[in-house]
């Protein structure tokens, strides 16, 4: 066991070449041991899920504005709710991992800033009724996906998952279960009422609920994200996909009717309600 007070071999002033070589050897050993610790494949999967979420949101938003400029404002609000729920959930899930990839440097953020600016410009063009090549609405989210997903994909392809590191499902605590059901209620209501005239009231209520439970660390969305296992994240992915598909469907077809929206809302609610009570028992040998 190492101690803080004892100087390194040689202690600086009397450091011999052999002492310096020993320190360099120790540096290599520690660096390699730390590098072998992660970030884990589960963390890479979570980062990849973020890439999918962001790029999907961009694609659906741009396509909705493009194909349904007149009725796009309500439909784009439907997209906002899962995206706003995802962010604090993700923040909580990141706390599971003992090794986290540090937030990238200025070059990465500059690239993402450019993509965001292009996204805003394309959205603005659609709102202003100015046309642009259709493929741009897909190329831009594609570029965002490549930027965000390249590192986690490399990690997933290059590493296997040690058994001790597998992210497994556990029964949720009472508070996480209630928040999971609340997510189902919120997303279900948003989907169900998306075709109704007073949708904006439901949306405002959902926003208030999100503000109330959004960032409460002890029982809110971050805590729930921390507790969620793969099955809960997969269910949330299903719910988000369903809502995004609903928006696309309503944008490009005339199926934006109450039975379709209520059916979708009920489906979304049932998925989150069911998964809130899964798994019934903890899996054996589970660990982060």
């Amino acid at each position, binding site marked *: *066991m*190492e*101690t*803080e*007070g*004892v*100087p*390194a071999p040689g*202690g*600086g*002033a009397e*450091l*011999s*070449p052999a002492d*310096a*070589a020993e*320190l*360099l050897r*120790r*540096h290599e*050993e*520690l*660096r390699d*041991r*730390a*590098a072998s*610790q*992660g*970030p884990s494949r589960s963390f890479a999967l979570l980062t990849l899920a973020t890439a999918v979420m962001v790029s999907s949101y961009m694609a659906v938003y741009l396509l909705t504005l493009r194909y349904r400029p007149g009725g796009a404002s309500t439909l784009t609000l439907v997209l906002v709710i899962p995206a706003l729920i995802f962010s604090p959930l993700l923040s909580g899930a990141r*706390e*599971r*991992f*003992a*090794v*986290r*990839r*540090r937030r990238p440097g200025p070059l990465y953020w500059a690239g993402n800033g450019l993509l965001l600016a292009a996204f805003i410009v394309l959205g603005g063009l659609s709102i202003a009724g100015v046309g642009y090549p259709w493929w741009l609405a897909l190329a831009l989210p594609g570029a965002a996906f490549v930027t965000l997903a390249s590192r986690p994909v490399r990690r997933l392809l290059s590493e296997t998952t040690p058994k001790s590191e597998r992210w497994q499902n556990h029964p949720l605590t009472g508070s996480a279960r209630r928040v999971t059901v609340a997510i189902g209620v919120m997303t279900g209501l948003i989907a169900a009422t998306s075709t109704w005239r007073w949708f904006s009231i439901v949306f405002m209520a959902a926003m208030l609920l999100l503000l109330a439970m959004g960032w409460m*660390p*002890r029982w809110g969305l*971050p*805590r729930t994200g*921390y*507790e969620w296992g793969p099955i809960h994240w997969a269910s949330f992915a299903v719910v988000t996909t369903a809502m995004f598909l609903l928006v696309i469907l309503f944008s490009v077809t005339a199926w934006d009717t109450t039975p379709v929206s209520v059916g979708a809302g009920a489906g979304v609610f049932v998925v989150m309600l069911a998964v809130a009570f899964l798994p019934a028992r903890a899996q054996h040998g589970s660990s982060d």
Partner: protein
Amino acid sequence: MVHPRHRLDEAFQTPIRFSLMAALESNTDLDFQLLRDLLEADDSVLSKSIAHLDKAGYVRVTKGLVGTRPRTWVQSTAKGHNAYRAHLRALRDITDGEFG
């Protein structure tokens, strides 16, 4: 020619602080408990080392909450990374005998 030992950084001249910076070399945030295991150090020794490097501006400490339990993350700063790289260069120069 100035002897490279003069370029050694005092902040890294205890084994634990030196090892801590080595562990933080990869572009990651490391959890306190993981660092403790990696460095085979006890909590108080590691805390003192982190506090010393934090005061020097060489590491950044982030507090998080896991459920109801606090969690501490440590990462090296750009200043710490550069200082540590300079320290390693001085060690290499000493090893290579490049001081006239």
